[in-house]
């Protein structure tokens, strides 16, 4: 172990001061790398695949976004044209951006808060009940792509549960074409997305709540924490920062990438593009029109949007409890 520990400590200081004379720096670096060759070997299969299937595609996507590319001819460099067309000429893309941001602003924070609130309530239950409730809340997101169930519920005829119920109650007289009416499409997709959204973040919160030091609560009670809300604000939330960060990343990414639910429920394309999102727009140009350069520009915009909102939210969350 010792022959590995010593160079590893040195590596930290060396990377910090990269300006030192080049040859010796290189030599030291090489020494360190050689000492860790087993680490590199262990990591190589994963890293190779990760580079080929994740890093390379992201770089390619950015490069292709500056070209005209139809998969048949060699890509032709056209500069910023795809981007200017995207923002200045493509009306549907503006609808898609509007819808995506609307989805993200509503489902993102709501599902994030729901994940936390339900994890928090469930955590107070007795173990058997807790396991059961965890299953109920986690089941929708785990059970595969079963959102077509909602298609039966919001079926446009009177045999659909929603229509049947409302007609029987006397609220409406004729069945509503839920998924073909621009007015209802967005709220329904938001509802289904919320139903689906208690996934990995939810599990992480449940786990996180169990790691909070129990003695902190006792100490808090002594120091005058009066009710569970104060307990939540002063003790639980600050203790769970890492999980809150992790959950935010997962939730933001999911809420910006809504596509499957929209395609399955509202159709593709949806009525008057009422349910178009950035990702469905991307799928449209990428797999139907084969305008790969243009589709890549959409992907790049989405990528920047995800990165930006993640970094912003992380900065915000770092302030919790400070």
């Amino acid at each position: 172990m010792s022959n590995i520990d010593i160079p590893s400590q040195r590596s930290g200081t060396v990377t910090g001061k990269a300006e030192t004379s080049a040859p010796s720096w290189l030599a030291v670096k090489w020494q360190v790398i050689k000492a860790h060759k087993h680490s590199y070997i262990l990591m190589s299969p994963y890293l190779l695949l990760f580079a080929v299937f994740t890093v390379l595609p992201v770089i390619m996507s950015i490069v292709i976004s500056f070209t005209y590319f139809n998969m048949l001819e060699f890509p032709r460099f056209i500069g910023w044209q795809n981007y200017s067309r995207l923002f200045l000429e493509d009306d549907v893309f503006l609808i898609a951006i509007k819808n995506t941001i609307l989805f993200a602003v509503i489902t993102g924070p709501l599902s994030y808060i729901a994940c936390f609130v339900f994890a928090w309530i469930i955590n107070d239950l007795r173990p058997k009940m807790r396991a059961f409730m965890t299953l109920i809340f986690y089941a929708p997101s785990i059970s595969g792509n079963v959102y077509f169930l909602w298609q039966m519920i919001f079926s446009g005829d009177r045999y659909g549960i929603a229509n049947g119920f409302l007609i029987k109650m006397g609220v409406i007289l004729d069945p509503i074409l839920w998924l073909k009416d621009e007015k209802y499409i967005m709220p329904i997709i938001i509802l289904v997305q919320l139903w689906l959204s208690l996934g990995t973040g939810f599990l992480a919160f449940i786990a996180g709540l169990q790691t909070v030091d129990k003695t902190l609560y006792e100490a808090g009670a002594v120091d005058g924490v009066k009710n569970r809300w104060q307990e939540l604000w002063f003790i639980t939330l600050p203790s769970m920062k890492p999980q809150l960060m992790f959950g935010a990343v997962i939730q933001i990414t999911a809420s910006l990438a809504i596509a499957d639910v929209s395609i399955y429920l509202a159709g593709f394309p949806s009525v008057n593009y009422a349910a178009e999102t950035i990702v469905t727009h991307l799928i449209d140009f990428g797999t139907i029109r084969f305008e790969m350069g243009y589709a890549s520009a959409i992907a790049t915009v989405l990528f920047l949007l995800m990165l930006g909102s993640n970094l912003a939210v992380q900065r915000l969350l770092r302030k919790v409890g400070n």
Partner: protein
Amino acid sequence: MKMALSLRKKRVNRSFSGTFWMSVFLALVASFMALPLVYAINAAFKPLDEIFLFPPTLFVRNPTTSNFIDLMTLLGQSWVPFSRYIFNTFFITGMGVLGHVLLASAAAYPLAKHKFPGSKLIFTVVVLSLMFTPQVTAIPNYMVMSWIGLIDTYWAVIVPAFAFSLGLYLMKQFMEQIPDALLESAKIDGANEYRIFWQIVMPNVKPAWLTLVILLFQMLWGTDGNGFIYSEQLKTLHYASNQIIFGGIARAGVGSAVALILMSVPIALFIFSQSRIIETMTTSGMKD
């Protein structure tokens, strides 16, 4: 275990009315969450005359297995035998899960326990990649696949799953909890890195395997291979089920039967592994 016991102890700062209203709230939302699943389970056992009953009922009155029998008949007539779809899905899911657990663990061990040039950068890139979805890279991914010659094989779905970044992230966090003393003593006894990884680290992260297994299982089970797999005999259960579900009104009941079959497998897996998964997420702690 210790945690479960301490939770049973009643906590201070709890008012009765607060607990009551929160339970009501929880019950309401829980029934909303469960509604579509309950509906699907009941619809799968409904005879045709009950499916088209007005007003529609949530619960089945005269349960029948005819939907499942119809499903079997229907699939018996399809061009590719149904067993082939089942095999495809299990093969893709099984290989993907196995490969991911092995490769992600092997990569997580040095990241968690050794500091070497590039380790920070590698981990940062992996965390960054958590921040975008596969759709962003779908097009270049297709091109890479076709260069390598993986299009229209199982591997087009399986191989990228090996390098799923969430798994590496969780595994690395979990491995950081393994005491250094354990690894050092193995080193003193003369074990090399590979042996330490295989005989010391791997047995110690068994609960974390389950988390990776369930995450990957969930992802691969729901995949239809769309865009990468074209041959009918290579397509997945999910693809076949979509064809059945969107096949028309006469198959409404059969569609529910398929939905029930599709969702029961991952749910059963989760029930089986729930406590272990929470335990992993607890210990992996997602520390900064």
